[in-house]
């Protein structure tokens, strides 16, 4: 957030102290802390990525469990990204970010699950295939 001082539309002074702040609007975070945070996140995500490749290529764990392990690693990876890069935390001034995330997940969930359900159903009112073949004959 090195360009904080020059960000023309920080209206932080107009916000209540109780209010939360948008990403890029956090005033006090020091540069050092930010770098440490990002590096930590980088470290975690590299470990998780490399781990996924190693697990898949070797037989350190019971082979049929590998897909499950990969899913676990993937979810952990998402968590690392959210916490270290997108700064989603449980802190009190993070309500907006968490709500935005929840809304996003809800929308994706509705559209993806809904589409799968709908598309899976679209042949329901069709004549069974053999009957159609019979009629064409």
């Amino acid at each position, binding site marked *: 957030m090195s360009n904080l001082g*020059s960000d*023309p*539309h920080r*209206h932080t002074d*107009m*916000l*209540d102290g109780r*209010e939360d*702040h*948008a990403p890029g*609007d956090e005033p006090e975070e020091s540069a050092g802390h930010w770098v440490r945070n990002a590096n930590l996140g980088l470290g975690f995500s590299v470990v998780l990525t490399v781990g996924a490749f190693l697990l898949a290529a070797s037989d350190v764990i019971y082979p049929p469990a590998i897909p499950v392990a990969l899913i676990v690693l993937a979810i952990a990876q998402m968590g690392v990204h959210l916490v270290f890069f997108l700064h989603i935390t449980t802190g009190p001034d993070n309500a*907006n970010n968490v709500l935005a995330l929840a*809304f*996003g997940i*809800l*929308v994706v969930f*509705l*559209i993806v699950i*809904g*589409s799968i*359900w*709908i*598309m899976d*159903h*679209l*042949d*329901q*009112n*069709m004549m069974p295939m053999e009957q159609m073949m019979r009629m064409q004959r």
Partner: protein
Amino acid sequence: MLGKLGLSAIPFSEPIPLITSIIVILVALGVLGLITAKGWWPYLWREWITSVDHKRIGIMYCLLGVVMLIRGFADAIMMRTHQAMAIDAPGYLPPEHYNQIFTAHGTIMILFGAMPLVLGFMNFLVPLQLGVRDVAFPTFNSVGFWLTASGALLVNISLFVGEFARTGWLPYPPLSETTYTPGVGVDYYLWAVQISGVGTLITGINIVTTVLKMRCRGMSYLRMPVFCWTSLASCLLIVAAFPVLTATLAMLTLDRYLDFHYFTHTAGGNPMMFVNLVWAWGHPEVYILVLPAFGIFSEIFSTFSGKPLFGYRSMVAATLFICVVSLMVWLHHFFTMGAGAAVNTFFGISSSIIAVGTGVKVYNWIFTMYGGRVRFEVPMLWSMGFIFTFVIGGLTGVLLAVPPADFLVHNSMFLVAHFHNVIVGGVVFAIFAGMEFWFPKAFGFRLHEGWGKAAFWCAFIGFWVTFTPFYVLGLLGMTRRLQHINFPEWSPWLYLSVVGIAILILGVIAQVMQLVVSIRDRERLRDVTGDLWDGRSLEWATPSPPPFFNFAVLPDVEGEEAYWGIKLRAVETQQLAPEPDYRPIEMPVNSPVGICTAFFAAVFGFAMVWYIWWLAIVALVAAFAGFVVFAWRDVHEFEVPVREVARVDRARRAAREALLERMSRHGALP
């Protein structure tokens, strides 16, 4: 060098588009010539085109929307008269032209007419009502507006150069695939909608951020005017739904340009996926339009009833309820596509449930009027016409949401009647109500009342005479989008509908007259107080028109109906709050980045439509370069000196003192 573009693209052999083109070009040249002759360019460039002031951008959005509404209305006149003349006769529009007209009508009315108007109202009002000086990202705002304008430009260019899509306003494949529509029509549609879609998304993000992050001191969520709530909900839907549209159209674009197979019948594609995805955007879209309209009516009902809005909290809850549920009903647009009973029942019920939220709102508006001192000014007429019209549209919607019933009238004129009933009665009436209501705020003088009333009555009666026959025709079995009609039994209803359109034309004339007469008589109609309707929210605390910085000192809100509280206190103590301590104000500088990016985006779209690859690349790079230059800017705001701030605000206070004195003399307040 010029791709597919050649002289054959100009419709020399078709008199109607050719003559229209010539007239439009002449008018456009005339306007540009007038601006040049009068030397208005520097003023326009400095004060409007490059402006990042949310009020100016809002006004430009509305202007764009109004012009496009008129264009779309011209299409509507042609469709009505053609159908009336095409009963066992050829009519006057050949099929390929008629199909372009209904496609252009839908696209223009929804995406380039109603959307810019709704976004314009949000832009103009949200910062004022929240008591702040601008939206969260002012320059971004200008980019968003100009991108929408570019999309509109592309659609209108298609009238003179090439053709427009003939597929209907949602270009269903396989018809819209290259196999069946090889021409440039669908490509014009795709690029125009994509470019304006990006603009809309930008504005959506902007308003969401503004509402969440930029309220003035004390403006907690539950003190915001309902219009801010509905704008928030509408923009959340924009952020959720527009990316779906962009992705869907991008896939169709890949199908058309690079032989992909997302929506083809062959190679594993599935056209039904397009229908599914496009409605996953399309249904939220209708609520994107109508939610801000609900907000406008809420403000009007409470102001003109002289009462706080009845059930403010239930209004907020209903808004959020509609916002979420509208994301789970999209299948009701294709009940007949083949889904089984489980799916159809689920979506049928969820669609009907939306009406519960809307019903809550309708009762709240009625109870707001109940026991109030209702003033039947023009905005109030539109609002009452809205309740009547919209309730009937909602009821026919619920009827359509019952799958077995929908199987009978899907894609019939009954459906056409339903959605015009809700969109005209809901959105368009709201736009006209809002214009009457806030025009004085934006321009400093009110609109002529007599012409306004004439416009309302013509629109209201004209609407019903035009569209009631559609319900009958739908039940008689007439499908939508017919270029030729061979059932003479339908003719009385089609003729009646032409009578209706004639009444609507009178309404449009009344609107134009209202504007002309009001501008002529502006001195007499001047609003000197800044609060001519006895308003309740913060925009009425500013002078009309508001200074570019909106508030000399940001307000400190102590309850719901922020401005009403301030006003009551002033009346009780018989004086204004003591003069504040003025400070210099920092405001963002104007920027040409919006218009430049949008210009190159339009060139890019045009080049893509005609396969002029080099030009597309050049335009894309240029558009991007604009952003880079902007990112390197080193001056981004300027300071308004204390003297100027104080001068503007003292003038406002003087006007307010005069108002206060007048009010206490006449006892205008309770």
